[in-house]
């Protein structure tokens, strides 16, 4: 699944990456390359290793074997000890966690969005201006003095997104960004990711929602049990029901037409589907 190296240094390059949680493998011998400006979807069922891979890319955990490079530089614990590298890396790479409650640890929405800029020691005026702009952009200005426990699920997700987007990172790692959102908020998040198409932003989105993949990705990696079982453009991946069935992304749907009972792969998220009999 390695791609040909282009002119630019890849944003991320992984070589035989493995990772285990207390002896239980989560990522197995995974090699990958993510180019600058690419929008990638990590597609897989629960437990396929999507979230773990995002954490490895965000240098929150490190491979037990194999190596990861960020823009050509090794991404490991030793490198992260370098204050300048760590500061640059955190400024350029941001992760939106699947559970927004994990990410919203500050007392108010304003404090939450200002947290990253404060850590990166922005100037006071710049900080206030950029945080307020971001609150406006996400439509959450009226919530700025609210504590996170008084926000709805959709509002929490928006605040979590705002808290990383305020840093204007060049690489965005999104873990199930539309999960638990109502349809309107889902569509706002998808619109946001679509806006980044053709820009220099690299976006890696972990999801199992097939209906959003074509909107948010130019390339898809299908994960199963910590390994990549397929990679390609969304149209190619989504038109392969056997692959999706194997990755537990669709299920066999059994039903009857008169006296004929049969089963076929079934994709949720579409209002209707057609098939031959």
């Amino acid at each position, binding site marked *: 699944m390695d791609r040909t190296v282009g002119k630019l240094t890849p944003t991320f390059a992984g070589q035989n990456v493995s990772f285990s949680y207390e002896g239980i493998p989560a990522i197995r011998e995974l090699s990958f390359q993510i180019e600058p400006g690419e929008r990638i979807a990590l597609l897989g069922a629960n437990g396929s290793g999507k979230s773990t891979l995002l*954490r490895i890319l*965000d240098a*929150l955990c490190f491979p037990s074997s194999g190596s990861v490079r960020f823009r050509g530089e090794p991404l490991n614990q030793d490198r992260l000890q370098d*204050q300048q590298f*760590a*500061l640059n890396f*955190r*400024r350029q790479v*941001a*992760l939106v*966690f699947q*559970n927004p*409650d*994990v*990410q*919203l*640890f*500050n*007392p*108010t929405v*304003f*404090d939450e969005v*200002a*947290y*990253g800029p*404060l*850590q*990166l*020691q922005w100037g006071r005026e710049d*900080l*206030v201006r950029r945080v307020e702009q971001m609150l406006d952009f996400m439509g959450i200005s009226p919530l700025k*003095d609210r*504590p*996170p*426990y008084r926000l709805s699920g959709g509002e929490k997700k928006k605040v979590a997104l705002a*808290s*990383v987007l305020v*840093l204007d990172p060049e690489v965005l790692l999104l873990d199930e960004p539309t999960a638990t959102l109502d349809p309107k908020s889902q569509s706002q998040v998808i619109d946001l990711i679509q806006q980044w198409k053709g820009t220099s932003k690299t976006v890696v989105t972990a999801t199992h929602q097939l209906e959003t993949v074509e909107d948010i990705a130019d390339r898809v990696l299908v994960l199963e049990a910590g390994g990549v079982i397929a990679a390609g453009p969304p149209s190619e991946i989504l038109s392969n029901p056997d692959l999706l069935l194997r990755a537990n992304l669709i299920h066999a749907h059994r039903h009857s037409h008169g006296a004929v009972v049969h089963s076929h792969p079934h994709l949720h998220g579409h209002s209707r589907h057609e098939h031959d009999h």
Partner: protein
Amino acid sequence: MSSFIESTIRGFARAFSNSLLAEAAASRPGLLQQLDPRVRLAGIMVLVISTVVCRQIAVIAVLFLLAAGMATASGLPVMLLAKRVWAVILGFTGLIALPALFLTPGDPLLTIPARHLAISSQGLRAAALLVLRVETAATLTTTLVLCTPWTHLLKALRSLHLPAELVVMLAMTHRYVFLLIGTANQMFESRQSRSVGVLSGAEQRKMAARTAGVLLSKSVEMSHEVYLAMLSRGFRGDIHLWTDFRMRVRDYLGLTAFIFAGLVAVWIGR
């Protein structure tokens, strides 16, 4: 249906409602709310110290009236203070002060012949002093807490040089305690929806222990995740807090008034 589950759920609901009440009071326009949170904190601390140092009942009574007046001018209902502060303090501190009525030697005011007990005037004074001091200090601190958003209070503490680590720990505790209360509430509701009949005392204790265990493991797991989220956004061990407090003329005037009142009380009540 278990009364234990019901009362626990009611307790969780009460915790949320208290928090909403405090937020509503803090956002209401009022005397204290107009002042910078640092002035409120420092001023109330001055008055609490004066209350503790003061030895004259009459002066403490004036401080009590001042505290009650300040609470009312800040939009706190007197009934709320009476029910939640004054009655509770009277009950607890009254119980502690009760022996002083009989044990403090002095001129007898009232004798109970059947028990050979006498209330001395010195004993009554000591008990009254204790109760009044605690009532006044509790009224002042309750007014401060209810009229100041928790986040502002913490930042004000930081500006008074409380260590940043402690401030962040308190802020995060406040942030996540509600999440854990919500989780515990859902666990109890789920249990309630599947319960028929009354649980025995032993079963209730087992359930409470299991719930506490699950919550503990959830909170440990979450604390790890939160730490990762902090690292992801640039946390490197140094704590940077955002404060946008600015002192205005009325804040300086307010601070002067607090200090003046405190000093006068200490001087007269010495």
